[in-house]
């Protein structure tokens, strides 16, 4: 079946502009994660959604970052007033089941470059 998809695959923007990154999880998966992969910081957790529960935003690096998940499916990560240090690959993952140890399936990522 279809895996996790993300769009766009690449995004180049100018410093100070807002960007939106999209994630389509595997159908039926109730849990959704965003991670960031950058040269300086490695792979970092950003935010977690589970069903209708309040999201775990503990990994968001600043208030310029926000995310939403509409209808329990598609998620959008928004970065306002982008900075050069936001340049990274943003990965989305989804998970089925109720156990946090169930496998997370990752999308191919969105490569963000801030000029």
């Amino acid at each position, binding site marked *: 079946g279809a895996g996790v998809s993300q769009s766009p695959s690449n995004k180049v923007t100018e410093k100070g502009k807002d960007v939106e990154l999209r994630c389509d999880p595997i159908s039926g998966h109730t849990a959704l994660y965003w991670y960031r992969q950058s040269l300086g910081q*490695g*792979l970092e957790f950003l935010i977690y959604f589970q069903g209708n529960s309040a999201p775990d935003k503990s990994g968001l690096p600043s208030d310029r970052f926000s995310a939403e998940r509409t209808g329990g499916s598609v998620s959008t990560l928004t970065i306002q007033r982008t900075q050069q240090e936001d340049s990274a690959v943003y990965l989305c993952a989804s998970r089925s089941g109720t*156990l*946090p*140890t169930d*496998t997370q399936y990752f999308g191919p990522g969105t490569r963000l470059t801030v000029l």
Partner: protein
Amino acid sequence: AQSVTQLDSQVPVFEEAPVELRCNYSSSVSVYLFWYVQYPNQGLQLLLKYLSGSTLVKGINGFEAEFNKSQTSFHLRKPSVHISDTAEYFCAVSGPGNTGKLIFGQGTTLQVKP
């Protein structure tokens, strides 16, 4: 706080040779441990995971890992590597709470040479 250390940033090895990628973790509570692989320009794929029970875990593509609680390690091994194993490998621990969020190591690039 939980953390993961991958001791080698790069591991060069010849084809058909054995390989070990090292991973150490720190945690004050019980942990769940994972190894993921990332091929060039692709997302992360789960190789194997340790949740409980037998400390020797077998995964896909002939990889296995051993959980050692006393040494707080979870090293990844393969007895004979192929060119196609060239990729970046990430060790991860399941973070605090019941969210399943992963805390990753810095990654190890495995370079398999012919």
